[in-house]
């Protein structure tokens, strides 16, 4: 295997379809863990507000909906109450989207794909898993909850940091990016799907403080309650909040930002593999649709319909990526 300068072209990738699948889902599950932590934080905050029980139940119900955990929870518990929701979303091994399950599944995928991860990524994830497994849910008092949720976000950030700083910019990186941003887009869209009604223009609400808590909650659940003010230099306005979560190019969890990243990852991947896969076209179409939209047209056509259409597109794209790159061949 003599190597000459002429033959020094980088080796093409031999990555297994199964590896691509695991990397994609590893990133999705970690992103999901972080999103669930944020949803729980918001739900918990609202549950602490002085209100009658019924409305805090409603809030937890929408948390469960945003986390896509409502059906699973309903099968296990009759009533929606703080303690059970927290346990279900944080610790329940039967819930595949609980933070514990997300971390365990991500760590399992990472262990299966050790060779695709850098040591920094693996050690970050493995120690997060070890630390989380060591927590006894029964001994966790409610004071400790915010700290624990912060820790989850911090671990997710540390993993992303290790990834950004250490991974080769090859297919490992691209599949990881795809998982992260497909999941993030889904999450932001779900929050909007559950809460779209508080963002609809209602003349009687203008000027009243009633929905401010809800608006703040939406922003908090995507960690955007502070950055909003920097971007809009205005108090919370529902259409601006919707704009921020859907069309803003500055906001890292907006649908627009997510699709920018997805399109880039798919374009890089197709270039690396020397192909033009249908999923790349699909990502471009969705991005173009977002770029040609403004909030007036979205509200006119119906915010809820827009969001539901987006969620369906995003799911379809996930399936197309899986087919294009032989995830389950």
């Amino acid at each position, binding site marked *: 295997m003599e190597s000459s300068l002429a033959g020094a072209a980088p080796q093409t990738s*031999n*990555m297994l379809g199964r590896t691509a699948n695991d990397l994609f889902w590893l990133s999705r599950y970690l992103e999901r863990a972080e999103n669930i932590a944020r949803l729980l934080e918001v739900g918990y905050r609202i549950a602490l507000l002085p209100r009658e029980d019924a409305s805090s139940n409603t809030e937890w119900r929408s948390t469960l909906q945003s986390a896509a955990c409502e059906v699973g929870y309903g099968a296990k518990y009759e009533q929606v109450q703080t303690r059970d929701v927290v346990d279900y979303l944080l610790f329940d091994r039967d819930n595949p989207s609980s933070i514990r399950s997300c971390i365990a599944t991500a760590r399992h995928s990472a*262990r299966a794909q050790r060779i695709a991860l850098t040591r920094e990524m693996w050690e970050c994830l493995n120690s997060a898993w070890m630390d989380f497994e060591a927590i006894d849910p029964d001994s966790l008092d409610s004071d400790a909850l915010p700290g624990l949720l912060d820790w989850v976000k911090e671990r997710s950030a540390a993993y992303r940091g290790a990834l950004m700083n250490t991974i080769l910019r090859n297919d490992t990186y691209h599949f990881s990016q795809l998982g992260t941003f497909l999941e993030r887009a889904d999450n932001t869209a779900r929050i909007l799907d559950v809460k779209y009604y508080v963002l609809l223009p209602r003349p009687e609400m203008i000027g009243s403080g009633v929905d401010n808590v809800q608006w703040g909650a939406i922003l908090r659940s995507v960690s955007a309650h502070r950055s909003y003010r920097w971007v809009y230099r205005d108090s919370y306005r529902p259409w601006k909040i919707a704009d921020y979560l859907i069309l803003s190019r500055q906001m890292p969890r907006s649908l627009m930002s997510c699709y920018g990243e997805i399109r880039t990852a798919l374009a890089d991947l197709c270039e690396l593999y020397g192909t033009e896969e249908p999923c790349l076209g699909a990502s471009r179409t969705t991005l173009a649709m977002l770029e040609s939209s403004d909030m007036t047209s979205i509200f006119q056509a119906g915010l809820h319909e827009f969001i539901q259409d987006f969620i369906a597109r995003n799911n379809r794209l996930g399936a197309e990526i899986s087919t294009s790159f*032989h995830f389950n061949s």
Partner: protein
Amino acid sequence: MGAAFDEMNGTGGGVRPPYSRLAEWLATRRLEDLQDKRREAEILFRRTGITFAVHGAGDTAERLIPFDIVPRIISAGEWRRLAAGIEQRVRALNAFMFDIYHRQEILRAGRVPEDLIIQNSAFVPDMIGVDPPLGIYSHILGIDIVRTAENEFFVLEDNTRTPSGVSYMLENRETMMHMFPDLFASNRVAPVETYPEHLLTTLESVAPRGLKRDPVIAVLTPGLYNSAYFEHSFLADQMGVELVEGRDLVVLDGALKMKTAQGLLQVDVVYRRIDDDFLDPLVFDPTSMLGVPGLFDVYRAGNVTIVNAPGAGIADDKAIYRYIPQIIEFYTGGSPILKNVPTYDCRRPDDLAYVLEHLPELVVKEVHGSGGYGMLVGLSSTKEEIACFREKLTAHPDNYIAQPTLALSTCPTLVESGLAPRHVDLRPFVLVGDRVRLVPGGLTRVALENGSLVVNSSQGGGTKDTWVLQD
């Protein structure tokens, strides 16, 4: 069994030269500091995920192999002798396998009993007449060596199938360099980190003949739940090749292909870490889910190289072991540089009679066992255990060999009460391709129980970093 030879303190004449700097260093440490370092090492290992599943400990059990922070040291001169003996041995073992899968001259010459080969379950008749590239059957070997005195080394076992442990050799060194940089500054320790590069070069050198491009190489693992999974992924990672399972591979158009994100891609060299029986359900165990149907045909046609070759286990069969000195003489014309342990073959009536007479002073091993399972160490066994083995031996003498109990050398080892001598062995890892490659060192296994001679990790043994000093 007399008193054991201690590799640091020798036989009363003061600290042996290779250990002089380590001994000085140890003398300046407090026990609490060493214990702290031991705990620190354990945290490092857990974080890295260097774990080992112990059979019978449940599916998800991930245990650490205990690591002892006191290194084991071999002088340059000692290593030169070991290396020469190992190279001689692995060349002879490969020549032996080429012969028994071709003309079987050693059988015709009557130097090894024919039935011992032909009726051996490790012998793979399908391999007769197959010509692996460069005539090599066992490319990756682990030779287990024990020491009993200043100049007495014995080969206890040859591992010619899928020897494991090399990742521990590499990670032990990484951990030691991380924790004790000053020790490495004051001792000239030969590096072992070139092993993965040598492994890759070895695998490339045995690619199918006439291949016009760089070979595509993959490591084949039984999967996540295998006890050595960490090692499989570690080696694939260090070499920069894919880690595959049977389900990632398929035979198509006379070639072995792997299912990549871009579709099917031909594989040229498979470093398999699954046993012969599971390689190809069409030829071997039909119930195997771990292998690839049709793989053996592709191999026989010369379109893929399987490393180590199917049937390579014949050379480390415990019943063949006692013939290795003759095998070395037969193929190399020289006498063995490294000695064998005298071995009683219980299928021979004289040997069996002797073994039954002397059980309390012998080590009895199952011919097909490995990992320290199904083994009797007479010295440390109860009367009941010995009686039980006596029955087994009488019923199935063919299944057993016996060896005298060797006084394995000891090395200082950190235990609860401080530093204490514990018995050790050594497994250097050898690579055979276009040439023989051997990194200076190996895996030192240590029996952590006071007086125990069983170093296997499956039986609670630990490991040490192994230093070969440079001149």
